[in-house]
């Protein structure tokens, strides 16, 4: 496994370790946010929807603190090679995590509004599957980050195609429903927005996986068609 420690300066090791722990803590909070938001939407447990917003304050504060930590390390240590890629990745990962938090907040908001709406229930089966994959992607992406496991990260990254396919199916279904039942446009649109947010969570998790590949191999695989390294090591 790749080791971010082993610097001659123990203080530098500690700073990098601290940064990694902070990212994982932030990831844990975002996991909780997404879990709460999707439970509120799919199971109607709207009492926990409020918690998603409360957690978002913490997530935002952590993003600022971690960015500050990265700036300090760049200024003090002038990181190179793996350390440079690691710091660069932390900055990118926290941005994606923060946006996942925002998407969770949107889902929680719509969950409260949709809770009394029985017409939208029919689509929850599709949403449930999308949510399941997005949750797994997020958890696995954080796990890959903790272990800097690039091979697993590639596998997780490829799961995003499943969410995208599910999202497309649901979109077609919702479009048909919109044409057939114009009275429920508002509810249908809210379900669409929720689906969109879940799909975005998958995209952000995929981004995190791509950054992990960058840290480990120094290869930028963003926007590569099949998501595979040419010379998979």
């Amino acid at each position, binding site marked *: 496994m*790749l*080791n971010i420690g082993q*610097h*001659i*300066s123990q203080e530098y090791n500690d700073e990098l370790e601290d940064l990694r722990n902070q990212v994982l803590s932030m990831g844990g909070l975002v996991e909780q946010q997404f879990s709460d938001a999707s439970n509120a939407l799919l199971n109607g447990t709207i009492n926990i929807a409020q918690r998603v917003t409360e957690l978002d304050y913490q997530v935002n504060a952590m993003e600022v603190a971690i960015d500050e930590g990265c700036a300090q390390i760049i200024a003090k240590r002038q990181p*190179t*090679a793996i*350390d*440079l890629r690691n710091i660069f990745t932390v900055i990118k990962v926290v941005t994606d995590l923060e946006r996942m938090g925002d998407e969770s907040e949107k889902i929680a908001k719509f969950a409260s509004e949709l809770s009394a709406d029985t017409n939208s229930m029919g689509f929850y089966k599709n949403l449930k599957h999308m949510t399941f994959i997005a949750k797994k992607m997020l958890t696995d992406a954080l796990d890959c980050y903790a272990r800097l496991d690039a091979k697993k990260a590639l596998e997780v990254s490829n799961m995003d195609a499943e969410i995208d396919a599910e999202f497309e199916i649901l979109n077609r279904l919702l479009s048909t429903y919109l044409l057939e039942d114009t009275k429920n446009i508002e509810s249908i649109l809210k379900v669409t927005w929720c689906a969109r947010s879940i799909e975005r969570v998958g995209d952000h998790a995929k981004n995190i996986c791509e950054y992990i590949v960058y840290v480990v191999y120094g290869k930028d695989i963003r926007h590569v068609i099949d998501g595979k390294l040419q010379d998979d090591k």
Partner: protein
Amino acid sequence: MNNNKVELDQQLSETVGKPLINGTPKITCRDVNVFYNQDSQAIFDVNVDLAKNQILAMIGPSGCGKSTLLRCLNRMNDTIDGCSITGKISLDGEDIYSNDIDPVLLRAKVGMVFQKPNPFPKSIYDNVAYGPRLHGIATNNSELDDVVEESLIKAGLWKETKDRLNKPGTGLSGGQQQRLCIARTIAVRPDVILMDEPTSALDPIATATIEELMHELKSSYTIAVVTHSMQQAARISDRCSYFHLGRLVEVNDTNIVFTNPEHELTENYITGRFG
């Protein structure tokens, strides 16, 4: 550490990266070995090219052989008793160790700037004029004046010294003295400039001035620089080489070396890890 890297236990006999260049190099080193007193080998089988109008940085821990190799490039090691060299070093395709090469003329073509500024105890003018006089570059005083002025301009020192050319060179500040030494090197119209830690005795402002000067000089000269400052190597060089225990471990484009080096030893060194 990283399974993508060339592992530590892999043989060091082959340099990774791009030690040789496409096109015609200014200097080539082939299978260069350097020995001090037969029993002590300082450099092992080094193969590397220096590209024209580029800066090659040489980095590595103390005693790794980078300065030894640098000094081979203009036969400065000839002056060390017991030092012997095998292999071939060529300047523009010509073997610099062949019998018909005059080391004095070679050192005019391949100039050198040292760690500590070492102006002669002479005037600023005479410091710069010394080489041209010796090599007969100027035929009269007017031509010599032009060579001195041109060299001081190229070294970025003309504005500061034009009104005190007769003052002692040793009276200048450390940074100015180093630029005077660069002007002295330039005055004999070299093709290549070798720099052995040229800014390690200077403050950050003087260092920045020298680095800027190096950037300007590379359009006219080929430069090789030994430095202990990795940030400096990253800032100024086009290609960067890493030496370890007398072996050239890696040579690559500088932007690759500092973002994604190929060899684990290079990575350990530039990131400050135990190696």
